[in-house]
């Protein structure tokens, strides 16, 4: 028996990283305020600032490789698509400033900046959310929400649904493996894969549904519907004052962005 591990539950939940150890709700407030600000301000400059901010946090919290892989998957196609679309939409308009010629196709500055604005604010928004989810375990978020009065039933539904997705993926893999063993082609192009995959959906869903009843009984046996107060083995650290200040700053950024957007709109009018 690893008693050191067992007694570690006497301490608050901690990961040894300043950002990761922030309360999940504080982190969520920061991520949402910054993300929404990006949508409101809607300029490539603010988007880039957010991307830089998220990248620094990713390096600090040691999730950089996962972060950059996911971000590039979104960023590259989005940047290309929005730039091309804007060139096609507005490239022919008079007064545009030429910037370069791509194999006979003239690109202009104004539609290019408009494309950058859209893609950068979306990438900026995605980057802060990505940082949030890479640094926050769902069970910590649900625990924080339970501490704020969300019922343990809601928390269970959220967490078990996420586990169900993993379990269903495992079931799908098992069924596909057995199909393969029976000589059915499961590898190859997308059509072959889809042909093999779609017939497995029925058994996967049925097995998930049949397991639900037993799971409910198992949870009932563990006093899930007990009406007295619940206690928790894992306890989150009490929120320090400076964390509230961080949240307040994030909210100020959001308010500032709203003011900025209103003033910009008035100026245009």
């Amino acid at each position: 028996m690893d008693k050191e591990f067992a007694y570690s539950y006497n301490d608050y939940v901690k990961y040894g990283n300043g950002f990761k150890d922030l309360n999940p709700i504080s982190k969520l407030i920061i991520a949402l305020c910054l993300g929404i600000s990006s949508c409101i301000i809607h300029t490539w400059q603010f988007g880039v600032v957010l991307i830089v901010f998220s990248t620094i946090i990713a390096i600090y919290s040691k999730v950089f490789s996962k972060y950059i892989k996911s971000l590039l998957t979104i960023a590259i196609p989005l940047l290309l698509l929005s730039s091309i679309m804007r060139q096609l939409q507005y490239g022919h308009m008079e007064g545009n400033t030429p910037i370069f010629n791509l194999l006979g196709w003239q690109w202009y500055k104004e539609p290019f900046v408009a494309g950058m604005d859209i893609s950068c604010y979306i990438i900026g928004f995605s980057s802060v959310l990505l940082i949030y989810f890479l640094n926050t375990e769902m069970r910590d978020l649900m625990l924080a929400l339970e501490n704020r009065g969300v019922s343990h039933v809601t928390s269970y539904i959220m967490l078990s649904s996420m586990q169900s997705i993993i379990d269903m993926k495992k079931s799908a893999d098992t069924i596909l493996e057995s199909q393969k063993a029976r000589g059915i082609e499961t590898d190859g192009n997308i059509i072959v894969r889809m042909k093999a995959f779609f017939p497995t959906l029925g058994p996967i869903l049925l097995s998930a549904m049949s397991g639900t009843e037993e799971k409910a009984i198992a949870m009932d046996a563990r006093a899930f519907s007990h009406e007295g107060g619940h206690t928790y083995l894992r306890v989150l650290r009490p929120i320090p004052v400076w964390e509230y200040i961080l949240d307040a700053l994030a909210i100020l950024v959001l308010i500032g962005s709203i003011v900025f957007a209103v003033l910009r709109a008035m100026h245009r009018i």
Partner: protein
Amino acid sequence: MAFIELKNVSYKYPYTKNYALQDVTCSFEKGKFYGIIGENGGGKTTLCNLIRGLIPHFYLGKLTGECLIEGKDIREWNTAELSSQIGYVFQNPFTQISGIKSTVFEEVAIGLENLGVPKDEMIERVIDVCNQLDIGHLIRNNPNELSGGQRQRVAFASIIAMDTDTLVIDEPTSQLDPEGTENVFKIINTLKHSNKTIILVEHKIDLIAEFCDEILVMENGTVVFNGPAHEVLTKRELLDHKASIPEVARFGLAMEDAGKPLPRVPVTMDEAYKLIKERR
């Protein structure tokens, strides 16, 4: 006084024609180890569901007769109250894991969290149970990544940690390999000496013979035999009711038929060994 008492209980599941339990009358006393045997579809699991309060609170359907738990009708209990009185472990090890905990230690503590047990006490109880069930080496592991046998032991641990007076165990080894089965029966052996009331449904008749004080034999929703383990397991009529008897009891009966009876029909290997040794 009986802890659990059933008087002329009949029950049928919703949307079914046939009764799963028919006119069942039996009782369970505190501190005894009961075995329930019988063919598949005989009503064993339904009886467990009734004792655990899942009937009529979870499974609706038609229930008649009286089922009293500590003198109070099952209809008047709520399932949350019952869960702190009667623990329940069932067949499928894969659906008994909550799916929301990321270590075995947390999984074992889940019932205690729900019951509101203070954290210090919770940690001590989980450590005790993990040691008792020999799963201490698993506490850091993710319960969703364990083998079937390991999951069943974790399911036992989370129920035992709740320290209920009664345990209903429904075919705990039916989906396990021999090693998993052996480990589960080690747990059951530990429980036998814990002075709890245990109701075990199991097909492995040799193991039932070794552990149980009393046995109920069920067929088509009725209790066909009920009494002390030795008395029930040596009845020749059991074979007519599609219930198996221990191999050594079969041997003892064959010896009687051959006109060379042992002093009594044995039901366990140890008993048979002693009887044969005495005979020499």
